[in-house]
């Protein structure tokens, strides 16, 4: 934790750009970040904020370990890694869903162990354990849709936005596990010692979302 500035971990990519726009609309603009150059951190002392971009799946770690006071992370990441952080606000960006998908002609043969390919092994395990289904997890890091096509798995558990990629690969959603959107998270100790500032950011974001 660094000085009196509020350190904000933003997820790299399209979601992060939208999140920054929301912070800017809430009164936390940072001219430096709009002309980034080769810098890694960007600050605006006038509003007491310092931003840095990190891999979306790392935002929760930066916040949990206190390198960032607050951050914005997808609900998928929060449910997969269960970081010890406060989840203060649904910022409503990056809406999608976590779903089980399979080839259109798939039929679940409950006499067999179900092979599940996923980037989210903890979420998949929790889901199938809650319905008592025996599964074999195949942890992949990308191109999950390929797994059932090549016979590597029976189904996949993955993020679905529009469903276009699934459709193109002759797959379809069999069940939705939960809806996903980006959440404002805070480090538990930072919340104690920078309570006023963090609460003000949360309220301003809430106002900007409306």
């Amino acid at each position, binding site marked *: 934790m660094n000085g009196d500035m509020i350190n904000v971990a933003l997820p790299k990519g399209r979601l992060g750009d939208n999140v920054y726009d929301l912070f800017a609309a809430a009164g936390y603009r940072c001219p430096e970040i709009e002309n980034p150059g080769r810098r890694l951190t960007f600050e605006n002392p006038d509003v007491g904020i310092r931003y840095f971009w990190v891999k979306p799946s790392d935002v929760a770690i930066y916040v949990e370990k206190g390198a960032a006071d607050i951050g914005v992370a997808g609900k998928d990441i929060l449910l997969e890694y269960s970081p010890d*952080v*406060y*989840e203060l606000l*649904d910022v409503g960006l990056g809406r999608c869903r976590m779903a089980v998908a399979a080839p259109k002609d798939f039929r679940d043969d409950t006499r067999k162990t179900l092979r599940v390919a996923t980037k989210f092994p903890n979420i998949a395990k929790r889901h199938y354990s809650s319905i008592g289904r025996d599964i074999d997890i195949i942890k992949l890091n990308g191109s999950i849709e390929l797994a059932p096509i090549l016979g590597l798995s029976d189904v996949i558990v993955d993020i679905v936005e529009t469903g276009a990629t699934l459709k193109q690969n002759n797959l379809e959603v069999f069940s939705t596990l939960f809806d996903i959107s980006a959440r404002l998270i805070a480090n*538990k100790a930072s919340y104690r*010692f920078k309570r006023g500032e963090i609460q003000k950011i949360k309220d301003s974001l809430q106002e900007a979302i409306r």
Partner: protein
Amino acid sequence: MNYAQNRLHEKLRTVFETAGYRRYKMSKFEEYDLYAKNKDFLVSENVLTFTDLDGRLMALKPDVTLSIVKNSAAEGVEKVYYHENVYRASNGSLGFREIAQAGLECIGDVDEYCVCEVLGLAAKSLSAISDSHELDVSHLGILCELTDRAGLDAGAKKELLRLFGEKNTGELKKLLERESVAVDCAERLIKLSQLDADTKDAAKVLRPLLSGYVSEDALELFLSTCDFLGEEFPGSVRVDFSAVGDIGYYSGIYFVGYVGGVPSGVLSGGQYGGLMKKLGKPSRAIGFAICLDLVDPLFSKAEAFDADVLLVYHDADAKTVYKIASKLSGGKRSVLSLREAPEGMRFGEVYNIVGGEAVRER
């Protein structure tokens, strides 16, 4: 361990001993059975085990409280403190770790004074670690009463406690809607999850919120404890129901302590009536543990040097070197005495013995 860490441990010992707590020194091992039966109480389910020479399955202690409670006396009040290492796989680590813990337990005929005393000692311990500290206090008995009144089943209750711990009001509202909780009860639960108040304001906030919804005795006792904390530790203890523990074990006041510069809670504890019941003990208990490993980085600044002082004694005789080293240390600073200055080490100050006298290098 450096001097600053040593001093902290000494300060904590003083905090505990001046309240009449006596040191409880224990063996590193315990029969595995104790932990197998109480896995939910442990931070991690993973326990390091080995078979003893007589065939018993033993464990390196992953927790101190269970052992103390198991061996506690049946009558009176037992007040003990400990400073022990425990062995467990901590969250996010890839293997087992040896973790230093200090803490205390008050077991037996625990009354209101005992509860106030333990909370006071928790606040004083945090103060011994850092000037920048905060103790958050909640009451799991009151929270459970309210969830029972809301008609939540065990699964929903567990989910609700997780959301309280995350200060996740958005998801909490959805849960209460999904579970068709009566509006007045739901509103109270939502307000309680958002509560973050100075203990001196506890009565003003909690009485209108909870009166008539939870047992008056429990509420008044909690408010009286908050009143004590607000008076004795102004500004450093807050009522915050995001401090939640396992309700199977903790049944009353629960608290978590934070210090500036450490990203997570360093102290946690509470009234563990549930654990006492599970272990077949008729008495009550309250205690807390401080994770010293989390606090250590606060004192690592002193380790910017390999020693506070390097004393290069060249050809000086042993008596002279000993006298000068003792004087430079004064029992407070670390002094490394070597014939020649070593390579690759850093020192706060460097002295050479020249003609029987210590001369400081500029």
